[in-house]
């Protein structure tokens, strides 16, 4: 119990500091892609920029718009962070160790991922702002739509490994192959599908229509100021970092690696996935809401169903047993 609690605290600290680092990393990455330099003045090569940002946000006045639902408005930002962090509890850190080991880890992770929509909607509704409301509407629609391909893509490793335990999936991959590499046919497409759905669930470009800043100013965060905005902003990054971690656990073997399996491999893979996600983000333009739905329901969901079917068929061949 004490071990689990201290591990949980450690994971929260690690995830939050990784998120802070991710903020800096993304800004540096984007700057270099745009032939700029990026943050460079706060700390060595701008490493403390997130700290400076945080200090700035903390100083700022928190304004509650007139007519807003005060309770929901105040409650929503911390909740976004909590729900985003909750999924991190199930990530197996090294063989056999996670904050929460559960037989149905995949299900719970996806469940918490789906829950993240609720505070976003709360924020949008409570802001008493039309842009925020439109953003909330889009966020809810997008979240439930992309939950379906996300579950379907997650089903593929579950079926292949024969377990819903995240650690079990990783261990299966350690003794066989990583699902992103083999079996190629349900594995790799499922990985891509998972990435796409995860991008959509965490509102990253090209699926960031809930906060499309050129249309909806800032979506649900329009009315938020100061640290409340900081929470929502932080939650997005936590969501992406945790999502990348889960993606690497489910498809890239998690802590498994050529030498000395352990946490470092998980972090490295998470970093790679994170880089990929952000590279995509700083390269593409965003979809329109209706195109997003078309992509989801006409392409990704059927593809996911097909992949689930294929992986079931693959399992029947008995390749692994």
């Amino acid at each position, binding site marked *: 119990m004490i071990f689990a609690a201290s591990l949980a605290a450690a994971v929260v600290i690690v995830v939050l500091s990784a998120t802070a680092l991710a903020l800096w990393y993304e800004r540096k990455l984007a700057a270099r892609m745009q032939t700029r330099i990026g943050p460079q003045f706060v700390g060595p090569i701008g490493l403390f920029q997130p700290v400076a940002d945080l200090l700035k946000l903390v100083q700022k006045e928190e304004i509650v718009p007139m007519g807003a639902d005060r309770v929901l408005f105040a409650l929503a930002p911390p909740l976004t962070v909590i729900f985003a962090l909750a999924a991190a509890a199930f990530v197996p850190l090294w063989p056999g160790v996670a904050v929460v080991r559960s037989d149905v880890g995949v299900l719970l992770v996806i469940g918490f991922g789906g829950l993240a929509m609720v505070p976003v909607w709360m924020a949008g*509704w409570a802001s008493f702002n039309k842009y925020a409301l439109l953003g909330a509407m889009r966020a809810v629609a997008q979240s439930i739509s992309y939950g379906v391909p996300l579950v379907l893509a997650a089903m593929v490793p579950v079926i292949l490994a024969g377990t819903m335990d995240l650690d079990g999936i990783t261990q299966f991959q350690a003794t066989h192959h990583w699902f992103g590499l083999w079996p190629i046919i349900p594995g790799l497409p499922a990985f891509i599908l998972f990435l796409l759905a995860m991008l959509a669930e965490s509102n990253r470009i090209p699926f960031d229509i809930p906060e499309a800043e050129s249309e909806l100013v800032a979506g649900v965060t329009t009315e938020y100021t100061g640290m409340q905005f900081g929470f929502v902003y932080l939650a997005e990054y936590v969501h992406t970092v945790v999502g990348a971690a889960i993606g690497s656990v489910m498809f890239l073997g998690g802590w498994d690696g050529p030498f000395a399996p352990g946490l470092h491999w998980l972090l490295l893979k998470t970093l790679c996935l994170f880089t990929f996600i952000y590279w995509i983000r700083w390269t593409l333009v965003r979809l329109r809401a209706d195109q997003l739905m078309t992509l989801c329901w006409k392409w990704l969901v059927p593809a996911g169903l097909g992949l689930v079917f294929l992986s079931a068929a693959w399992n029947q061949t008995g390749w692994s047993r």
Partner: protein
Amino acid sequence: MTPGFIIAALLIFAASIFTVRSSKLVHAVLWLGAMLASTAVLFIQLDAPFLAGIQLLLYVGGVMTLMIFGVMLTKKSGDGELRTESAPALRGLVISLALFGLLAGGIFSMTNGAPALQKPEEVASIAASVLGEHWLAFETLSVLLLAAMVGAILLARKRDAGAPESGKASPR
């Protein structure tokens, strides 16, 4: 009667009361969500994480979303004027007491006859029972859901075709 159970039960109880008593529909929906989430806590304490996951995914995620959509689609301008009305107290009391009695009777009659849960639930056993023993019910349910989905789509289509196209709206 572990402390965990008491906390969860109190949570459920309070959330239910607030769900009923909230004058704002949005708050009622969110309290309902809280109530469903507390139920998931109960499942976890019963060593049924699968059910807890399903509860989170389907009830808190899915049902809540449906409610939210209902709220959003009925009132678009978002001016927070959505109010709920409670039924007259006496009628409400009678109905809820009757319902409580019915449910309690059912639950007690069940637990008295059935043996207590022996071992923690396993996903595999649930899967086996759903896809083996109860496959007919399972498949029938899926067909029913499919029919409901097709019906919903058809209904939505019909209303859409009947509505005047906004671009062609004529001057008053």
